[in-house]
């Protein structure tokens, strides 16, 4: 459990480092596109495509980092009326729902990556499976974090979120 928590912290540090790189790259690519058009009267044909795919990566890796921080908003209406036991049961149910969705991201994400294996991107001829892969990859990270939260709540160490 200790070890698992440390592995998760480590995965999250890696995710956040990637996010910093993606975020900076995205700002640079779009800024270069504007500068190119005005200063050199020429904008690269690949900038839009690259920026879009960076956005896809940022979305799913960022979602994993946000999940680790428990920053995804929910609507807490029931908790006020529930006792601690019921609240924990509810938290565990939510983790299981999350786990189900993340499992679909991994399993169907892998199938879909395979499904588009022959497709290439219009501007840069990148293989599309490389871009789509972020969904199952993020799914694995999300599922790891989810399992950690689940273990904690099952052991009764969870904060009553």
């Amino acid at each position, binding site marked *: 459990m200790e070890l698992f928590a440390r592995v998760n912290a480590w995965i999250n540090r890696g995710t956040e480092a990637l996010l910093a790189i993606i975020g900076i790259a995205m700002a640079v690519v*779009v800024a270069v596109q504007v500068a190119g058009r005005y200063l050199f009267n020429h904008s690269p044909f690949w900038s839009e495509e690259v920026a879009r795919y960076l956005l896809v990566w940022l979305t799913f890796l960022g979602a994993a980092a946000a999940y680790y921080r428990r920053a995804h908003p929910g609507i807490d209406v*029931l908790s006020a009326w529930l006792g601690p036991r019921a609240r924990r049961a509810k938290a565990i149910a939510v983790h299981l729902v999350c786990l189900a969705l993340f499992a679909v991201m991994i399993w169907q994400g892998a199938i879909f990556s395979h499904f588009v294996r022959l497709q290439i991107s219009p501007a840069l001829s990148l293989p599309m499976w490389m871009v789509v892969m972020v969904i199952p990859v993020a799914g694995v990270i999300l599922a790891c974090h989810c399992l950690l939260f689940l273990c904690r709540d099952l052991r009764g160490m969870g904060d009553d979120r």
Partner: protein
Amino acid sequence: MTAEILLATLLVLFLIDTPIAVAIGAASVAAIALPGDFPLQMVIQRLFSGTDSFHLLAVPLFMFAGTIMEAGGISRRLIDFATALVGWLPGGMAAVAVVSAMFFAGISGSAAADTAAVGSILIPAMKKSGYRSDFAAAVQASGGSIGIVIPPSIPMIVFGFLTGASVGRLFTAGILPGLLIGLSLIAVSSLISRRQGYGAQAPFSAAEVLRTGRRALLALGAPVIILGGILSGIFTATESAAVAVVYGLVVGVGVYRRIALRDLPGLFIAGSITAAIVMFIIACASVFSWIAAIEEIPSRMAAGLLALTDNRLLLLLSVNLVLLIAGTFVETTAALILLVPMIVALLPELGIDLIHLGVIVVTNLAIGMLTPPMGICLVVSSSISGDRLAAICRRIVPFLLVLLVDLAIITYWPPLTMLLVGVLR
């Protein structure tokens, strides 16, 4: 059958406090998997295509711009300038909170960021000057909600993404309604302050306005660049966001020297995570909206509403009511994706411009940010002030009432939104 599973699952998952994005995603998975009409791979295709958009790039870029400008120390300067401008009013600090939020709104696309940036300084300051803590939090929450009406605005970007409306025009259309809302909030807070005996900050001084104005010049330059760039046609909305990031870096790192280069990764991580929270909702909601489209839910709902009335004014009223109710319970981005297709199906009967409709939708959702259980501005304010949500809610009622009046004006008096759009054509 599919539609019923979708909506029932969604309701249950919302009730047990599932993260909104996951609730929408999981309900969509259930609606595809249980009847088994479509392959589950569709989920992945929609997750991907919901985020693969040049227009939506503006979401993280405006988040980065806001985070960087904030770290660059502009909030303080904007607040000093606002104090010189309106600090002499009764309840001067409350007015300062609203005006500072309006300034910050011109840089940030998010109401939560707006509330946090200004509130983290002004809520403690108001408390220290003897304002009731829950009143201070209520003023700041309502001021922050303007963040999405005054451009730039993440919800307007999403509305443009969903409907094909020009984001530049939506931004332009938001300016006057944003000013109207700001002024009316100042009026209410001054009235309450007079009754509570909260005093002015300092007498008005033109010299002080000039001094603080000069210090805030670079900070005020950001909205000028963003809006000026879009309106004059130099940049698209997405490009203006990238330019704002560069400008924020130049000001924060180069001029104010409040940001060190080693802080940059942290700022981009923080911005990426806030953006990803919105984007993940968009991704999951686009699975939902694909199912809705294939099951024709939006047109069925629109037809249902039309069966009740085809009076234009009543239809506009019911659109507002639907949006207000949705804004009360559902997060802003999710409400947009779930409802905008239905509302746009009504556009011919509503007889208004798509841009005008966009501003009405966004204003409704701004009000929704001030109502529990899902009121992001309330949550941010209460976490700064330390008050319970219920206490702030009581204080926010007069602000909500005036916002409803503003909403009625914005809805039924088109020139307010369309005037600037027309001038700029």
